């Protein structure tokens, strides 16, 4: 498996940058295996097309307005993902929506597409996440790690201390609160 984890968002606008912050947290905590690439996509769109080529799976992490309380994490997969961006509930709807459409048109869309979205609380100018979103960063990080494990890419913690053991089956998964819901 060749997997791209794409953090999307603008680091200069607080919670807008949660996708990129989640990748930083993931990299700080785990050794990333060669089959996985973490990419800070910023607020780019079509420029990312090249990065989708030859991937088996794409995991996008972004701020997503799902109308739920700040810090709520939602997970979408497959056909749901382009629909989220088409419905404009992510601030990057246009760039990523175009990217996914064009990737499909050129047969570059990976077979598996998953989106983790975090409900933002503050979108002002600034480098800091809001407390509500900062508080779920660990949860998001572990959810990405679990997702990667489900694709057969096990992440090894950098320090043995509090980190959970992750396996492909998800057994031995960390005791985190999953606020992650699938939409109806």
């Amino acid at each position, binding site marked *: 498996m060749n997997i791209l984890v794409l953090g999307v968002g*603008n*680091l*200069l*606008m607080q919670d*807008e940058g949660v996708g990129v912050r989640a990748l930083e947290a993931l990299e700080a905590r785990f050794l990333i295996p060669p089959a996985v690439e973490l*990419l*800070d*996509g*910023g*607020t*780019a*769109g*079509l*420029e*990312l*097309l*090249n*990065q989708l*080529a030859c991937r088996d799976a794409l995991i996008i992490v972004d701020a997503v*307005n799902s109308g739920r309380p700040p810090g709520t994490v939602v997970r979408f997969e497959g056909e749901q993902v*382009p629909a989220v961006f*088409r419905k*404009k509930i992510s*601030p*990057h709807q*246009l*760039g990523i*929506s*175009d990217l*996914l*459409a*064009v990737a*499909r*048109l*050129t047969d570059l869309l990976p077979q598996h597409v998953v989106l983790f979205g975090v409900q*933002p609380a503050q*979108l002002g*100018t*600034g*480098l800091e996440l809001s407390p509500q979103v900062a508080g779920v960063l660990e949860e998001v990080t572990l959810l990405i790690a679990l997702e990667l494990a489900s694709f057969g890419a096990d992440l090894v913690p950098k320090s043995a201390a509090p980190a959970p053991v992750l396996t492909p089956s998800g057994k031995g998964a960390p005791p985190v609160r999953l606020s992650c819901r699938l939409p109806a």
Partner: protein
Amino acid sequence: MTTRITIDPVTRIEGHLRIDCEINGGKVSKAWSSGQMWRGIESIVQGKDPREVWLYTQRICGVCTTVHAIASVRSVENALGMEIPLNAQYIRNLMVAAHAIQDHLVHFYHLSALDWVDVTSALKADPKKTAALAQNSSSWPLHSTQVFSDAQQRLKAFADTGQMGIFTNGYWGHPAMRLSPEVNLLATTHYLQALEVQRKANMIVSILGGKTPHIQNLAVGGVANAINTDSPATLTMERLYYVKTLIDDLGKFINEVYFKDVCAIGAAYADWTAIGAGVKNYLAVPDLPIDGKGIACLLPGGYLPGGDFAKFHPIRSLQDEYFQKGVHESVKHSWYQGEWTRHPWEEETKPEYTDFQDNGKYSWVKAPTFYGQPAQVGPLANVLVMYAAGHEPTRKYTELALNTVGSQLGQKLSVDALHSTIGRHAARAVRAAVLYEALQSQWHNLIENIGTGDAKTFVRPEFPKGEVKGVGYHEAPRGVLSHWVVIKDAKVKNYQAVVPSTWNSGPRNGQDVPGPYEASLIGTPIADPQRPLEVLRTVHSFDPCLACAIHLTDTEHQEIVEVRAA
């Protein structure tokens, strides 16, 4: 009767630009350009280490990350009076030229061609006739009947999913669309091929810059690329030769496809050479420096007031004070406190939102001026300025474009035809061809310089006690970009970015003179106010992108095309 139309947002990529027009007797009589988001990068970098600021500024915009990084390191280098290694200049030049080519290809095919090309009509074309037409005018290899037939099938399948996605903003069947089904299929097929080709330009930036969209190899004082022709971890000859093949591939597409498509569309819509001129004061800065201080540049810059070649004033180097002294910004019609007009080093950024006031404040974008006048920036300004400066490659490709379109129309076209909506597209294609030659020359410069045994890529910046000021500018894909920095005791004291879309999309200035978008729309004929395709054609021809001019404040932003009678 006056009809008022509001188009919001105008761009399909990021950015929140609102255009209001008053239409009288089938023509635009008044126009307002309004940025609907607020930008506050300046406050974020205050107090930061000037060597790190580029890492933040490349986040101002999602599309133009590289250009804000380049302008930022140049501003600090300018403040310190630095001379940077030749290898660093060449590597930067390769990155910015490749980035610009990628931008121009994507702008033409993916962001604006659908204003002129009707995809639904392409579905009715005869692929065989299309192939004959294409092979007659171009040596591009991907012009077989099979290629066009495949492209048509692919489009049909895509259309059948009911998710036209990227194509949804098209005004299909609009009376202002006039290409034949075959030409529509040709252009749409190139739309698909350009998606592949733009990836190659992107790869050049990735290989040299470490990663895209956010390059990692820049540094105040040079670049962080280690050059070692033997070590695989560095910039090796193998990688550099791979870059060369990518450059060659880009050249074929630019010369055999992009350039010719733009000429064909220019000939089919020749009336648009008389529409959309607007502000004819053109400003471009020199770029692609080929010495350490940025004194000699491959591409000339200058100011062309009124489009008059006799009044051309050159901007000679990255240090030229003529540019530094000429730039001011006004907030009289912008949502900031006061009504001041100031030099960027003296500015402050204090927002003050009112509602949309036709005669008062109505935009988050400030209004820049050059020696008191609004100025148009972008590829058209760049090409006209380089033409005026006698830049040979620019003259060659400009003549080629004018002659190609002229022969299709059976008339002689002068450079005046470029002061127009279609002229902006033509200039962008000319610029892409010029940049392709520059890529080749910079690649050779780099290889030859490494061949002399020079592997230096970086010199360490030294910050003095006290205050220094600098400006870094860059002729970005959308035009003149300048970053203005004030450094005190090795920390950023003030920072302003005057971005290309600010020059073009700015509101009325301190003297109430309209900005380039606004002026360019006056007199534009509107066939159907309910579907104002003509307004979009002109605004899109500037390659609008407001992600950096302004900032997001409203995630629930509604997409509206509002039309009302007044």
